[in-house]
């Protein structure tokens, strides 16, 4: 019996060692250890043995069984390793093949620029107010100190929609709406589309403005200066300078045109600079101290000691400067070759 056992076991170990696939290994396991397997059959024969022989042979058989199982396991691990390696050898992607890409979208530069402005000014405490684009002539002009027969009307070529109704030429009407709706202090930004009868590479009949208004007791012109300097440095860089030049807008007094030092020339002043045309300065916005007439129109009492500042900037102008866009009309053509760039 013992010989028979060693013969079966020895042969099994050899077969296991020789086996080259998981299937053949499994086959060996079944032939030896399965219900009808040779080792199982042999062990069934134990019952016919004498009580003396039985434990000896039983122990030997179990030992062989363990050995075989160990060998099977070992061989299986080895084979699996080989197979995995073969699989890894076989499986390969060309990672240079084109990716499946979701379409990239984009916000219009006008929106991006307005958001940046709101973010910058917002840090100082400005709220945001929107208003209608079709505006009464009264709020667009009279209420902001531009009476019907005033030469300042010539400053803005106006589209009329009907008697007393215009497409707003600036967002100043929203400022007046805000002052009519609330008491001082008023600190608002008014972004939005505005309209003027003008159309060429630098004028669009529709464009966007962002106006700011800050009304409170004892607001000083130095506050306007400081706020605009803060804004310019946030937008164009920490070493930006601003320059205020006296000018005239009926809704402010004193009024100023505000220039910002050229952000491209700053490093190296160049006569050929495409951005500032060699002047070193960019004309960027109009500003001033709120004309007391506006407080009167809004029903604010003079005795409150109110003052305020206001400024208005052209969003497209700033977007065009920042992104070096050569023609204003590009912004309104819906050309994805343009829109997708920003």
């Amino acid at each position, binding site marked *: 019996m013992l010989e028979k056992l060693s013969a079966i076991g020895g042969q099994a170990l050899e077969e296991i060692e020789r086996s080259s696939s998981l299937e053949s290994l499994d086959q060996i396991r079944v032939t030896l250890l399965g219900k009808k397997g040779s080792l199982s059959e042999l062990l069934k024969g134990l019952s016919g043995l004498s009580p003396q022989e039985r434990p000896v042979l039983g122990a030997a058989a179990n030992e062989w069984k363990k050995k075989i199982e160990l060998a099977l396991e070992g061989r299986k691990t080895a084979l699996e390793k080989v197979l995995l390696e073969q699989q890894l050898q076989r499986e390969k992607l060309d990672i240079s093949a084109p990716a499946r890409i979701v379409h990239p979208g984009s916000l219009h530069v006008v929106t991006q620029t307005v958001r940046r402005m709101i973010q910058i000014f917002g840090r100082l405490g400005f709220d945001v107010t929107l208003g209608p684009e079709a505006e009464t002539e009264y709020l667009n002009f009279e209420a902001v100190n531009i009476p019907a027969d005033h030469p300042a009307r010539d400053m803005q070529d106006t589209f009329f929609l009907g008697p007393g109704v215009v497409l707003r030429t600036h967002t100043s009407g929203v400022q007046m709406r805000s002052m009519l709706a609330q008491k001082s202090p008023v*600190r608002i930004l008014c972004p939005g589309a505005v309209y003027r009868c003008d159309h060429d590479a630098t004028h669009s009949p529709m464009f966007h403005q962002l106006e700011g208004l800050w009304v409170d007791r004892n607001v000083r012109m130095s506050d306007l200066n400081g706020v605009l300097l803060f804004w310019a440095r946030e937008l164009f860089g920490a070493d930006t300078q601003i320059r205020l030049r006296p000018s005239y807008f009926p809704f402010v007094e004193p009024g100023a045109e505000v220039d910002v030092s050229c952000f491209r020339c700053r490093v190296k002043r160049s006569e050929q600079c495409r951005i500032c045309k060699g002047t070193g300065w960019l004309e960027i916005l109009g500003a001033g101290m709120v004309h007391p007439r506006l407080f009167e129109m809004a029903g604010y009492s003079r005795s409150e000691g109110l003052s305020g500042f206001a400024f208005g900037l052209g969003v497209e102008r700033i977007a065009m400067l920042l992104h070096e866009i050569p023609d204003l009309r590009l912004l309104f053509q819906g050309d994805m070759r343009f829109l997708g760039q920003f």
Partner: protein
Amino acid sequence: MRVSWNWLSEWVDLSGFKNPNELADLLIRRGLEVEQVERLDRGLEKVVTARILSRSPHPQADRLSVCSVDCGSSDPLQIVCGAQNMKGGDVVALAQVGAHLPNDAKIGESKIRGVVSHGMLCSEAELKLKEESEGILILPSETPVGLPLAAVLGKDDLIFHLKVTANRGDCLSHLGIAREVAAALGLTLKKAQPSPLCEGECPIAIHLEAGELSPQFYGVWIEGVSVGPSPAELVRKLEVLGLRSINNVVDLSNWVMMELGHPVHAYDGNQILGKTVSVRKGREGEVLPLLDHKTIQLSGHELVVADGERVIGLAGVMGGGNSEVQATTKNLFLECAEFHPSWVRQSSGRYQRKTDASHRFERGIDPTDLGRVVSCFAQEVVRLAGGRIVGLKSVRAPSRSQFQRPAIRFGLHDVHDFLGFPRDQSPLLLSELEAIWKRLDCQVLKQGDHWEVRPPSYRWDLNLMEDLAEEIARTVGYDLIPATIPTLSSSPVSAISSIPQLILQDRAKDSLVRQGFHESLNYAFTSLGSLESLGLTSTVRLMNPLSEEYEWMVPSLLPGLIRNALTNWNHHFGSESLPIRLFELRPVFAAGASGAVASSQTETGVQEAWKLAIVMSGPRFAGGLRGDFAPVEFADLKGVVEALLRDLGTRGVRFLPFSASRTGGNPLFHPGKSAEVLAGNTVAGHFGLLHPARARDLKTRDDLWLVELDWTQLLKLSRGAFQVPSYKAWPEFPGMERDFALVVKEEISVDKICQVALKAGRPLIKGAKVFDIYRGAQVAEGMTSIAVRVIFYDETRSLQESEAEAASIKLLEAWKQEIGAELRG
């Protein structure tokens, strides 16, 4: 307005300026924008007068001469010249070596056919004095030699092109600009203002019949003038300012205006009928032939100058052709008057005549010096045109006798506080304020803790402390104003904040950008034709459009986006279809019941409704292989809308097929391939395929999918955007799923199957989704096979197979009962 350096120098000493740009900078710093400084001598810098000493033929060329010329300084120069019109003794224009002429020729020392030429004798064409000329320029023989030609021609001048703001009517003359420069530099004016004539005999009676609309009128009668051409100097003086010479009298009226800022007028005295001149309102039906040879019909809403029988001038705008000064005129009546700014503006606007006169009257003239101005005019006329001043006559309303501007009273430190300067400290002492105002001709009184400042008569723009503060600021320089940050005296929240609306706008835009869309902006106006071709119309029309193309306010954002799609297709080439992904979020416009008419100070009668519109076409992905370039379909579009609504936190929106719509859909959309969006019972938009008829008309290249949503409705339903989500636990016990293949009639919408499942399967059925739809040979005609997956679970325990089984049987029953669905055999 144009200002001449030389003319300005007559008024104020400009020798302190090292170069013209310094003066330009000063003017800019004072708020007078200089658009351009024009050098009249450009190209003439090295051109001098020279006398030809001798002329001899060129040894090598018959057509050329060799001249010896004296240009004042060194030895005579040898010049080769091709012209034939000169002789020895002539004074000519010599371009010296190094000259760069106005016609861009550069002059160097050259050898012409073997003879050296040290310059060139110039023709008028070469000097750009004329378009064409024959021969060289021969100057009058008495012209001194060796002078810059520019000086001889009166071109040694600089012209400043100023943009004077509407508040500074006082700066529309050389006197005005000189006052500014003098005030800035602390100088006094060189020229005294002319002294007025005494009142005397004047055969014309003056009547002011319009009260304060024309509060004063000065007239001078001159006899025996000779109207003729102006002297060259006057012609040049006006020419460089852009004023064409007419005759000596008219030219002098322009000269007075440019000198002193008052529009003045000369009438042919003999044409003033009835020996009276009156200022009055026009009368309806009256006609006036104007100086520009056109006749206008008066409306009664303008100010006119009339004689005893007819109207002879549109007051403040333009004189009448019926009393025009002509070559034969012998007697003159000169006018210097004051007309009301807004009346002049109205006339000028109504009759479309923007003149130098109306420009100045609209902005206000100095009401105190009419007598001096008209006297100056009269004296100059007599000087140039001869004749005799018979007399001056004036009529003034009471408001104009002893006229002065009201004084402005304010606190001693108000200006410092307002501008943000430290009180009475460097850089701005109180004494400095006083000095600045005085230099600007203000009368200044310091009374206790107050200032009392009376502006000069010509400064109509100075009315308030703020105006006087501006004078200080622009004099010391805006750049000296400190930079401070204002303090926040209360919460920054405004009573009418639009922040919530902006947050939702940003969310919507960000959602669409994430989904691959580009934001587009289109004009709010378009042509009627482009709307009609899409079956749309507009109710708001621009009264003064730029062109037909931009005449009607848009009722929808889709026409713009569809046009954008066509634009993009037009420049697209290649075999692949173009991915189009565009959106726009803006208002559209409609007239209210009574039209676009202002019904109050704040109501326009125009309804502005914000819309969110999308167009979509072309491949599903931006990159990949063939399979990824499948064109987008309704499911993609619906996915975009649903993702958008999810990102906005919109709740309570339903989609309805057009067939079930009570409003009948929208002409832009394919009725069978589009959905109506409902918010409650209100239509809140549409999405679907562009109507095939429209697609055919527009020649679209690919299927174009559209969305237009009513933004205001969405806002109302998007309160979810502002709710802070609370944590919710997910089910602890595993659920089960069962798949069913059902056959239903085609007209049953698939989501009905899910609705029935969720309703009938309560409480165990927690989800149902359709995952396949099949129509075709494998199912009967008119039927659809639908695969649906149903999810069962219970939050409190694991489910038994048998429970799911029982629920499934119940569900099948419900499907059969409610929508006639059978299990597919």
